């Protein structure tokens, strides 16, 4: 087999980071080529360069041994390169058919489109209703739309950027079957992931990237998750493990029959959610993104007066109508999903960001003025205790890497001595070192009697730290499962909505 894509000495820098540092490797025709690396290793930048979405500083790309100058996505598409994005590039208010038409290189009539997409759907086992608006589809269905849209152009190369991060285990195995069939029919697939087992199950070759550099390109069949993980990180990470045989008794937090009835089609309505959390317990809420996590978090935070029925109790006190700061004063702390812009203001210093989250506490104020001495010392304590890599607390929050900022934000909340800590996607998109550190801190916290709710898409993470896990599916929360008697098959069923 000959090489269909050749990267030659690709460089790309962003302010402060070298995203691609002399990247060179080849991709063989009709193969599944995985690109493996941590968040921030430069995988996404590299494929965006191949797709013409990002301009490299220097370097060449050869397609079928010919020099290709790809300066926009439309040139890439003309060369037969299509991409399925991590954050979908669909138009929410348009229908499936309209989205498919927009993805096609040539103009096509609606009847012809129906025929063509039906052929593809039947052949590979997709199930699409062309007339539904995208906003009514589940995340898995949206991905099907993206893939079918790419296939309609008869591509030679299909790039998939972290395609499994939004799928249930069942959907993942279905997707893998489809990918293997596509390759049999002549396609070359470039598959980006940071999940080791997936890469071993699926790919023929794997290129490992670290800090913008290619570590090596190897045949996948000679590898196992451990050797691959070591190559990806350059060091070994020991996994935290939850102690599970604890009897919790004291109730601390209760949700009773929580429901919403919003008419906005872009939101998910919650359906009679019940949750019961004990002192010192870690409770995981699993589920594919877009099943009501955002809405649940909004109600737990109460930033926007989200309308709901049902009751929320914290230590037998009904907190339905309490504001965010009143809840914080009761010692409930929050870490939201979006680090920049929600948990922290990027343009403000770390100290100032401490104050924004803690201004309900009188100790950080002198009358109506900010007590800078206090917030600065609080910030330096967070930086010290949580290994935040930063020269000082005067650095703007936006200058920190994802992992460091997340350690800072979680540290900020933990150091305010909460009795209940609510975390949304605590380790999303951060490096493995920071991830391990945060998990360790969460476990310590629970041993000291703090209760924790973690909302996460990452099953491995939940299985590692939680005592109990429930699955959120289309606004309904499953019965809680004890971690010691969970298996992936059962969890996969729950994530597909198969629970009572």
């Amino acid at each position: 087999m000959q090489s269909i894509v050749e990267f030659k000495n690709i460089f790309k820098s962003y302010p402060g980071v070298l995203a691609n540092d002399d990247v060179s490797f080849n991709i063989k025709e009709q193969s599944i080529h995985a690109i493996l690396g941590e968040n921030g290793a430069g995988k996404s930048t590299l494929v965006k360069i191949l797709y013409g979405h990002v301009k490299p500083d220097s370097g060449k790309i050869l397609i079928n041994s010919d020099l290709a100058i790809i300066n926009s996505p439309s040139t890439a598409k003309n060369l037969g390169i299509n991409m399925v994005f991590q954050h979908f590039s669909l138009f929410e208010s348009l229908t499936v058919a309209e989205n498919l038409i927009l993805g096609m290189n040539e103009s096509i009539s609606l009847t012809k489109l129906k025929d063509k997409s039906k052929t593809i759907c039947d052949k590979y086992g997709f199930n699409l209703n062309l007339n539904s608006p995208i906003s009514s589809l589940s995340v898995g269905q949206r991905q099907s739309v993206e893939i079918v849209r790419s296939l309609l152009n008869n591509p030679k190369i299909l790039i998939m950027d972290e395609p499994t991060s939004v799928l249930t285990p069942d959907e993942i195995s279905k997707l893998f079957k489809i990918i293997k069939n596509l390759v049999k029919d002549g396609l070359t697939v470039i598959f980006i992931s940071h999940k080791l087992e997936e890469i071993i199950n699926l790919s023929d070759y794997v290129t490992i990237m670290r800090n913008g550099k290619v570590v090596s390109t190897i045949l996948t069949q000679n590898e196992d998750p451990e050797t691959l993980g070591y190559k990806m990180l350059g060091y070994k990470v020991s996994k935290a493990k939850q102690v599970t045989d604890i009897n919790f008794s004291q109730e601390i937090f209760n949700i009773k029959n929580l429901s919403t009835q919003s008419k906005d089609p872009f939101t998910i309505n919650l359906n009679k959610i019940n949750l019961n959390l004990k002192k010192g317990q870690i409770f995981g809420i699993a589920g594919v993104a877009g099943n009501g996590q955002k809405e649940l978090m909004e109600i737990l935070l109460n930033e926007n007066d989200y309308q709901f029925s049902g009751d929320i109790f914290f230590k037998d006190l009904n907190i339905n109508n309490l504001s965010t700061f009143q809840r914080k004063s009761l010692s409930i702390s929050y870490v939201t999903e979006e680090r920049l812009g929600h948990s922290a203001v990027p343009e403000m210093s770390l100290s100032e960001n401490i104050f924004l989250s803690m201004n309900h506490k009188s100790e950080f104020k002198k009358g109506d003025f900010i007590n800078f001495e206090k917030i600065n010392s609080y910030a330096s304590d967070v930086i010290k205790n949580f290994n935040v890599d930063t020269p000082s607390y005067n650095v703007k929050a936006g200058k920190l890497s994802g992992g460091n900022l997340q350690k800072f934000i979680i540290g900020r909340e933990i150091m305010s001595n909460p009795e209940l800590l609510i975390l949304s996607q605590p380790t999303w998109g951060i490096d493995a070192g920071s991830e391990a550190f945060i998990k360790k801190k969460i476990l310590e916290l629970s041993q000291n009697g703090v209760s924790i709710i973690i909302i996460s898409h990452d099953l491995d993470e939940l299985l590692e730290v939680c005592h109990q896990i429930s699955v959120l599916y289309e606004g309904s929360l499953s019965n809680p499962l004890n971690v010691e008697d969970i298996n992936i098959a059962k969890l996969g069923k729950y994530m597909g909505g198969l629970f009572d």
Partner: protein
Amino acid sequence: MSIELIIGILNIVLISTTPLVFAGIGELVTEKSGVLNLGLEGLMLVGAVTGFITLVITGNYFYSLFLSIISGVILSGIFAFLVLNLMTNQIATGLALTIFGIGLSAMLGKKFGGTPIDGLNPYYFIVISFLLVFFVAYFLSKTKTGLIVRAVGENHNSAYALGYNVIKTRYLTIIFGGVMSSLAGYYISICYAPMWQEGMTAGRGWIALALVVFATWKPWRLLVGAYIFGGVAIMQMNLQAIGVKLPGQFFNMMPYLATIIVLVFISSNKLRLKLSAPSSLNIPFAKNQ
């Protein structure tokens, strides 16, 4: 009320509403692609004065129409360059365009105030305005190019990722909107008045902007809305004629008052506004580098 009076009123409503339809439908297309152009009033005035002066000097309707259109292309082209290439704030740039247009038209038209001309028959334009609404409705809902315009306004990053030229699409819709505004101005100074007077568009550009929101970005609703507004504007004259005893200022205020009431009413339903507005409206687009 006699039949003649009703026909007379309808006739006046038709004649006076047409500029709202032109300016409104142009702005609707611009906003569908995600750009908010607040410069309609300025574009209309410059279109009006350019057409008028050319007609006075050359006596040729074709030249006057042509130059009026060109004025719209140039001014909206400048607006497009500022907001698309230099990524200036759309609201501030649009306001500047209006202020600029008011001043420029006043300066150019200084010597021409009160010059008599033979006006054009407004019915041509009335027919064209209806055809235009039909054409835009068809274009946006049925053609691929119309779909691209909507896609760009809905999510410009996705549209770019699929290989569409966001900047070029927006240039074209902004210039279309600009040309429609100058046609509205041309109609006012050549057919409706027909004369030139400083500030003669009298806030119609702003009403057209409000109409787009009122119509929740749908062409046919815009047409209906324009005629409701036109009706209110004409009603004031008739009420005065019938002899309703209210200060004249109150009657003059009515179209603007109606605009505010309608906007408050529409904005009160935040969900509906969110669902119908183009999601990328007023958000600048920057290519990944």
